[in-house]
């Protein structure tokens, strides 16, 4: 390291900590929740990217629709049953998810574990129902362009379900076994916010896949 003075001129060696000379940050918290935190911005960056991907895929759906004389292209619209059921499960999962988020902010380890477990059970449920959704799309990805984009939309969202379930599972195991420090509750909170995104992003995707072809 160079001996040259740094800016501000290096008074450290001669004067030490004189009151008012330095801005002391030792007493600041070592982690924070929400938009004050680094991880929140990282998560929101990912949300912005993936939200744009969803928006582009939906725009593609409607762009292709302007090409077709009939829509959906000579096949029946997807069955509503499983799609609606899954939407309800996902919306319901917001409750334990937000409860977990609040308990994380309170550093309530026991309830955080419980909340995450409930979320995981619901996550497993909507991944299972997703299988039936694929089976009742009534079109294959290689039948025509309509089939391609419908499969892509549903596939794209399913990737999010899987990664979100995986993230939550890993974090849940960590909350059971440790090693733990306060920052891990921020991870739980960020994970819950990402879960919100995955559920809320589903609503326009749902409307596109299931409702749009009926009009």
């Amino acid at each position, binding site marked *: 390291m160079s001996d040259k003075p*740094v*800016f501000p001129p290096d008074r450290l060696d001669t004067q030490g900590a004189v009151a008012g000379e330095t801005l002391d940050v*030792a007493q600041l918290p070592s*982690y924070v929740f929400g938009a004050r935190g680094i991880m929140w911005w990282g998560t929101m*960056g990912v949300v912005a*990217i993936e939200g744009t991907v969803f928006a*582009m895929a939906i725009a593609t759906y409607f762009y292709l629709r302007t090409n*077709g004389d009939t829509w959906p292209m000579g096949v029946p619209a997807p069955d509503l049953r499983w799609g609606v059921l899954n939407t309800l499960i996902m919306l319901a999962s917001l409750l334990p998810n937000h409860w977990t988020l609040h308990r994380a902010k309170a550093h309530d380890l026991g309830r955080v574990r419980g909340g995450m477990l409930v979320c995981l059970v619901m996550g497993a449920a909507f991944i299972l129902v997703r299988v039936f959704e694929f089976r009742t799309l009534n079109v294959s990805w290689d039948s025509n362009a309509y089939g391609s984009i419908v499969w892509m939309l549903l596939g794209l969202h399913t990737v999010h379900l899987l990664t979100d379930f995986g993230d939550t599972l890993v974090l849940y195991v960590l909350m059971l076994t*440790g*090693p733990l420090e306060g920052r891990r509750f921020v991870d739980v909170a960020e994970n819950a916010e990402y879960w919100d995104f995955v559920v809320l992003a589903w609503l326009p995707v749902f409307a596109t896949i299931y409702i749009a072809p009926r009009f």
Partner: protein
Amino acid sequence: MSATWDSTVNHQPLDRRDGATGATAATDELERTWSERPGLAGWICAVGHKSIGKRFIVTAFCFFVVAGLLAVAMRLQLARPDSKLIGPDLYNQIFTLHGTTMMFLFAVPVMQAMAVYLVPLMIGTRNSALPRMTAYGYWMYLFGGLMIFTAFAIDMSPDNGWFSYPPLAGPEYSSGKRSDFWAQLITFTEVSGLIVSVDLITTIFKLRAPGMTLARMPLFVWAMLVTAFMIIFAMPAVMLASTMLIMDRLVGTHFFNAAAGGDPLLWQHLFWFFGHPEVYFIFIPGLGFMSMIIATFARRPVFGRAAMVLSLIATAFFSFGLWVHHMFATNIPEVGKAFFTAMSMMIAIPTAVQIFCWIATLWKGRLHLRTPLYFILAFFFILLLGGLTGLILGAVPLDLQVHDTYFVVAHLHYVLIGGAVFPLFGAWYYWFPKITGRMMGERLGRWNFWLFFIGFNVAFYPMHHLGLAGMPRRVYTYGAETGWGPLNLLSTVGGAMIAVSVLLFIVNVVKSRRHGEPAGDNPWGAASLEWATASPPPACNFRAIPVVWSEEPLWEPLRRPTHVSGLAVDSREVVSTTVLDAQPDHRYHSPSPTPWPFIAAIATTVMFIASIFTPWAVVWGSIPIMIAMIAWFWPRAGETRKQLVLEKRP
């Protein structure tokens, strides 16, 4: 094993904190804490923004040189009519790889690379916010580049142009794997570009030195903030499009197949929705370099700072409304074309505002003519010409006349080289002393500049005439009866001059690194924080984090408090501040070195490349990635114990 968690352990003795006590021991320990580990393992584990930034810049420069050599090969082939030097198939691969490399492996990454190195220093912090992600982004970028050049070596390089239009790039007209390699290269570089953007935004919003409000932020940091946001909203379009293309080719989807309800124009919309903003996220960092360098060499703050920032933001917004001007030769409605013509004219306004602000700055300043400023001044001349031909191409009737001719080739090189590469070379001369501690040679610098400037105009100016004379782009040869021979030969001579000039630059870098004049902290007398620390900067960047009181901290008298104290010296701690006002908010534990980003990048590379050959790779290839990511995330017990000592609940 059962978890315990106790937030009451918080006994950090004072001599374990920076900035306050007079102990040199503390400063030494701070330096040890922030140093990368030694040896090959340390190189792989590195997460410091300076280590990653430097290798990012060098890698991007290597791709620039290789893509430049491909350009030289093309110029040799075109130097005379009916040349047999390079056959049509190889020529197709060469121009595709030249464009693809320059756009995806050089122009965008090199700007991010400069930002990875410079932004934490400019805003007065010790590392970027998400350094492990940045390391992962670098490795993905490197492996993607290596993949495409391996494909080139085995004659499997893409050959459909850098924008890879279907149906030509689709399953019907491009058999084999060439287009798939192109599509996966896009995935690699977009993953890298997006990750680095998230890192830059988070760093800029949350890690600025206390007192550096958004209004006081250096203009290069503003430029990179705007660029990072643009990347986040533009790059997903091309990632989605390239995924659709590879799916059309591999699993029989029909996104671009008109016979099954798809649409080749969908590709053009998605590609250019990304592609036009891309021009601006190459250009806007260049504007950032301009503002920093002009202020320093004019020895006064940039005139019209608020107008400069607003212009950057306006340019970013307008750039998303221009994409259709790449599609004037398609059957989209005329009223749509009229809108995009209007937008194309409008985007000239914010750029003009900035140019006039710089001219005012130079006019009222006391100029200090050194090599960086030469490159900056060349910008005005070259970009102006490129901008004027841009107005021509933005008008539908004129565009149709010169569409797909060398006129377009001339235009795009004038704007991209003039708007980005000249400022970039200026930036390399300007920040080289900070990175290495030594000045670059001024004499070689002048040779470098004049050969580049003259060579550039000799190479590209004739292309305007060739285009107007009707010479189409992408042809591998032409007949003698066309009369295009002499101007093409002239252009090749210019290309050779650029090659020599870049060679001189490399000589200058190699020589100056060893024998250059020692630079000192602030050789140019600049105003921004990166010049406040040693050259090269210590591992911790600043022994004490500065407190910022003005837009030009190094040109203003010191005010108290001058710096931050109280950050741990035995753990990588930085101070995080509020987004708008940069008030101290919390202490952030910056991630330590780890090999997992490297391992995760290898796993991702295996999956991406294997998926070119079988779609099932996406399934089994994800498992190693998942394992690597979990190992990356999983906290280590020793590290956690150390953090518990420093912990303080919000």
